[in-house]
Every structure is written in C-alpha cells, then in structure tokens.
C-alpha cells in the first residue's frame, strides 16, 4: 500500500445522469418518484405541500445542458416529505424539501441525507463507467452498516 486519499466529488453531468442518481438515491432511502417533468408544468408543487420549505443545493455541481433538460425537475415523496430536484438558472443542481408539520431542522436533515445519497450514487455510476472503460475490473461491491459503498478494483499495468 502506498497512499490513502480522500476526494471531494464534483458533480458535472447532463440531466439524465443527475436524474438517474436522484432516482437511485430515492430508492435507497425509501422515497417514491412522483413525476419527472418540466418546471413549466409543475411550478409551485413543492410550496403546495406545506408551509415550510428548505432550499438546498448539491455542492460543486453543474448540470450540463443545451436546450434539452434545461427546465426539467424530478419530484420525490416519503412519509409526508416532498423533495424536488432541478437545475437552477446558474446551472447548479438544487433541490428543495418540504413537509407539513415538520421543523426546518427536520427538513434540512432529510435534504442533507437525500443530497448526499444522490452524490454517492452519481459517483458510484461514474466510477463504474470510467474505470470499466479503462479496462479495470470491479471485483467486489459491498455496502457496509453505515451505508458506505465499498468497491475493490484491480487491473494489470505495464
């Protein structure tokens, strides 16, 4: 062994990859996907679900898009919470969490968990795709008791 590195992920992707990561995170956390559509069709949905709403953003994120996916959003729900992921005008991946009768701290905690899992799933898919493309073999994938995903990757090098 030579080194241990800790990396801070950067999320730069087109909407389909962002959306896939959101859906995967939602499934892991027991959320149901309500719909995926354009802002224009669903504006104001989040605010209709309750008086309190917390707006958050995925750190170091950029939703790369031309015209496709520019105004898209995805809406999730679980136990009275609703979360809406979208792309803000500056291109960042943002989301808001709302829920009737919940405190701001509760909403923020749900949002941090959901946002973190979205990044986790995005990184997982990106690593699998990129490493496979470079001829590396994923020999093991496990999830530990803390919900961390562990991968073992091997390859032969000249």
């Amino acid at each position, binding site marked *: *062994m030579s*080194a241990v*590195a800790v990396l801070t992920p950067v999320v730069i992707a087109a909407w389909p990859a962002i959306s896939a990561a959101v859906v995967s995170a939602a499934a892991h956390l027991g959320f149901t996907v309500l719909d995926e559509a354009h802002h224009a069709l669903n504006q104001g949905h989040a605010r209709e679900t309750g008086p309190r709403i917390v707006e958050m953003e995925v750190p170091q994120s950029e939703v790369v898009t031309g015209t496709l996916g520019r105004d898209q959003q995805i809406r999730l729900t679980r136990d009275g919470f609703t979360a809406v992921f979208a792309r803000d005008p500056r291109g960042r991946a943002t989301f808001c969490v709302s829920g009737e009768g919940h405190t701001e701290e509760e909403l923020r905690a749900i949002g941090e968990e959901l946002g973190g899992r*979205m990044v986790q799933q995005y990184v997982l898919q990106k690593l699998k795709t990129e*490493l496979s493309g470079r001829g590396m073999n994923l020999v093991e994938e496990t999830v530990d008791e803390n919900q961390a995903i562990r991968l*073992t990757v091997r390859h032969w090098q000249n």
Partner: protein
Amino acid sequence: MKLREYEITISPSGEVEIHLDGFKGKGCLEALKLFEEIVGQTKELRHTSGFYEPDEEVVLHGQQHH
C-alpha cells in the same frame, strides 16, 4: 506486468476514500491523478510506508538497459 488494486469507499455523503495498493514510491500519485479526473479534488492525502520505498522502475517498450 504489475497488479494494481484500489479499495474505494464512497460515503453516504458522497465523499470518496481510495486506498492505492500495489505501488512503491510515488507511482501511486499518477494513479491518484486518474481518480481526481473522475471524482474530484483531493481533500486529504496520507502516505503509508510503501510511499517511502524507492520509486518503481518504469520500462518502456523498446527501451534498452546498458
């Protein structure tokens, strides 16, 4: 040919920890560059004992030793 092995842990918050195995010397830094391209910037780097061993000799195809 050398076998390289990477142990990767993706935390629930998305942070990535990578154990770079099978290297001697600073060869692991080249591997780290690859992961930085895929994931993002290095926040923390801890060298283990193997890092301080002599760098591996990289023999290019067609290169001759005298």
